[in-house]
């Protein structure tokens, strides 16, 4: 059997040598198709990952809202009333809405931050300690996020973004435990955020912001009872529509506005963007995949074409072999094997080229591109998709010519 296999290879090499140019283009067609499938899907996935990473940079399942003016009259109250939300609404909503996982009020303003001779106008937010994990503000090693005691004791502590740290302390230097001045009031840095990608924000990127306990913020900066906005998180992404509705009805009851009056509160459901991008990339990948598959299909047609030529040119040989006792299945196997050889050579070079391109683009050389299109990758799914398709293409391309070869009538074939 092994010897027979070697004989097949020898035969194949012979055939292909006779048809050098045609074979080259055929193999190239398969290579090109393989490269198309792998690279299109690979780059698509890289881009999707990059965008989704950015989307999640602000946190998952997050809804942000604040008070606005009513546009509907309600229970004898006229429209155009200003709805001002307060800190204790957080507890109320948390208790009433089962889908809600977490809620924090958030106030912010631009504040002068000073460290030595470095001075910056920075967005400072007052928030609850739970805000950190929800908004993906992770402390780098050696530091921590704000905690409950900070909140209870109204400590003057601050958690800062990595970019802000670079600006105030110098790039990469240690800031934890050091003091910075906020409008001349000293605050101790307890943590620095690790680097993250974030492509949506409502008050500046987290990298350049500073976070202090809500209680501290209220005492020092706001002096008023109203809250700019609330950040809340649903338990699951699918819960956000119901959670939004509940917020309207709970707050409508408290502040006496029509729960159907969507203008009474402004609201931003970040999952809508995520859903949009999920479907966008699904469509994108399908489009890319189909594009690659069609290229591969055209390559497959080329293979089928050359196999037909080979079968026709070797009609005599098929007749001889049949006369000497080769069964139809033996002939079928021979031509299927040859087809798979062509496809395999094309596939291997296609994989090699794709791998090369992906490795090059992944290298730091193309770092500035990564920010926009992400890093392309050949993941097992993409690779196996391409492999299965290649197998099918090989089978489809080989089957008809091989069948024709196997059904050759030896009497007629030997007449020529």
């Amino acid at each position, binding site marked *: 059997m092994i010897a027979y296999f070697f*004989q097949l290879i020898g035969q194949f090499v012979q055939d292909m040598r006779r048809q050098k140019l045609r074979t080259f283009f055929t193999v190239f067609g398969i290579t090109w198709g393989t490269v198309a499938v792998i690279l299109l899907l690979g780059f698509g996935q890289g881009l999707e990952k990059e965008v989704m990473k950015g989307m999640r940079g602000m946190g998952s399942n997050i809804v942000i809202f604040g008070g606005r003016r009513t546009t509907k009259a309600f229970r004898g109250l006229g429209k155009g009333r200003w709805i001002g939300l307060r800190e204790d609404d957080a507890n109320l909503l948390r208790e009433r809405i089962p889908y809600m996982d977490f809620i924090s009020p958030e106030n912010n303003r631009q504040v002068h931050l000073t460290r030595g001779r470095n001075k910056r106008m920075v967005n400072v937010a007052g928030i609850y300690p739970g805000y950190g994990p929800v908004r993906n503000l992770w402390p780098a090693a050696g530091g921590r996020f704000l905690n409950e005691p900070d909140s209870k004791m109204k400590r003057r502590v601050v958690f800062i973004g990595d970019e802000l740290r670079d600006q105030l302390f110098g790039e990469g230097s240690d800031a934890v435990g050091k003091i910075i001045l906020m409008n001349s009031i000293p605050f101790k840095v307890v943590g620095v955020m690790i680097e993250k990608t974030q492509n949506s924000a409502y008050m500046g990127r987290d990298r350049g912001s500073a976070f202090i306990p809500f209680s501290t913020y209220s005492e020092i900066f706001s002096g008023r009872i109203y809250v700019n906005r609330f950040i809340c998180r649903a338990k699951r992404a699918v819960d956000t529509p119901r959670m939004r509705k509940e917020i309207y009805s709970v707050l409508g009851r408290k502040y006496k506005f029509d729960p159907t009056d969507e203008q009474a509160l402004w609201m931003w459901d970040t999952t809508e963007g995520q859903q949009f991008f999920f479907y966008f990339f699904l469509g994108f990948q399908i489009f890319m995949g189909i594009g690659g598959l069609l290229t591969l299909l055209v390559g497959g047609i080329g293979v089928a074409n050359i196999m037909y030529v080979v079968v026709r040119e070797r009609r005599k040989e098929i007749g001889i072999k049949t006369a*000497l006792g080769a*069964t139809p299945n033996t002939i079928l196997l021979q031509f299927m094997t040859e087809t798979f050889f062509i496809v395999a050579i094309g596939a291997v070079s296609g994989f090699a080229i794709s791998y090369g391109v992906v490795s090059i683009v992944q290298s730091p050389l193309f770092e500035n591109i990564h920010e926009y299109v992400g890093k392309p990758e050949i993941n097992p799914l993409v690779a196996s998709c391409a492999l299965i398709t290649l197998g099918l293409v090989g089978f489809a391309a080989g089957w008809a010519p091989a069948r024709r070869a196997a059904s050759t009538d030896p*009497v007629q074939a030997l007449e020529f």
Partner: protein
Amino acid sequence: MIVLENVGKQYDMGAIKVLALDGVSLEIGAGEMLAVLGPSGSGKSTLMNLLGCLDTPSSGSYRLDGELVSEMNRTQLAAVRNRKIGFVFQNFNLLGYATAQENVELPLIYARTPTVERRRRAIEMLELVGLGDRVKHRPAELSGGQRQRVAMARALANDPDIILADEPTGNLDSKSGEEIVALFENLHKRGKTLIVVTHDKNVAGHCKRVITLLDGRIDTDIRKGDSNRAAR
């Protein structure tokens, strides 16, 4: 051993139907040396193809060693050809890209003979036909007579009982033809059944039984005494 009963073969050529064989009944015993003669279009080739299991009859039955060949499918026919029949063609039908040895190995490959045994057997057969020194030559590097001898070696590779030759000397000069005929004689002595389709009177003269076909029927079937051969 070979029993044809009322065998007919009809070809459909579009609207016209051609009756190539018309009720041929024939028995050929083991070890016979038989020539088939006849003008072109008399059905010689068709009979040859049927006897060689390359084709099946449209009517009638063909038994080979008691097996009903006329009812077999293509795969079964391939196995019968491989085991029982060796072909020698007018135009040799060797694979041009393969060496003499590789050509002889072909039937052994389809018989799934192990590699070592296959090599040994192929070389043995080439030595038998006097080409022990041409084992690695390709057909293009051999003379016509040598090519036909390679084809003979190939026909003998699986030690078949029957050798079918279709105008084996038709493309050869007389000297090479003589060599082939001598080989046939040799095989006949070893007890092989030889069936030769030929125009060559010389070849026919060596056969002890001569069948003449005319318009798809057996016209004459003459058995010669041993005296004929002795007289030569």
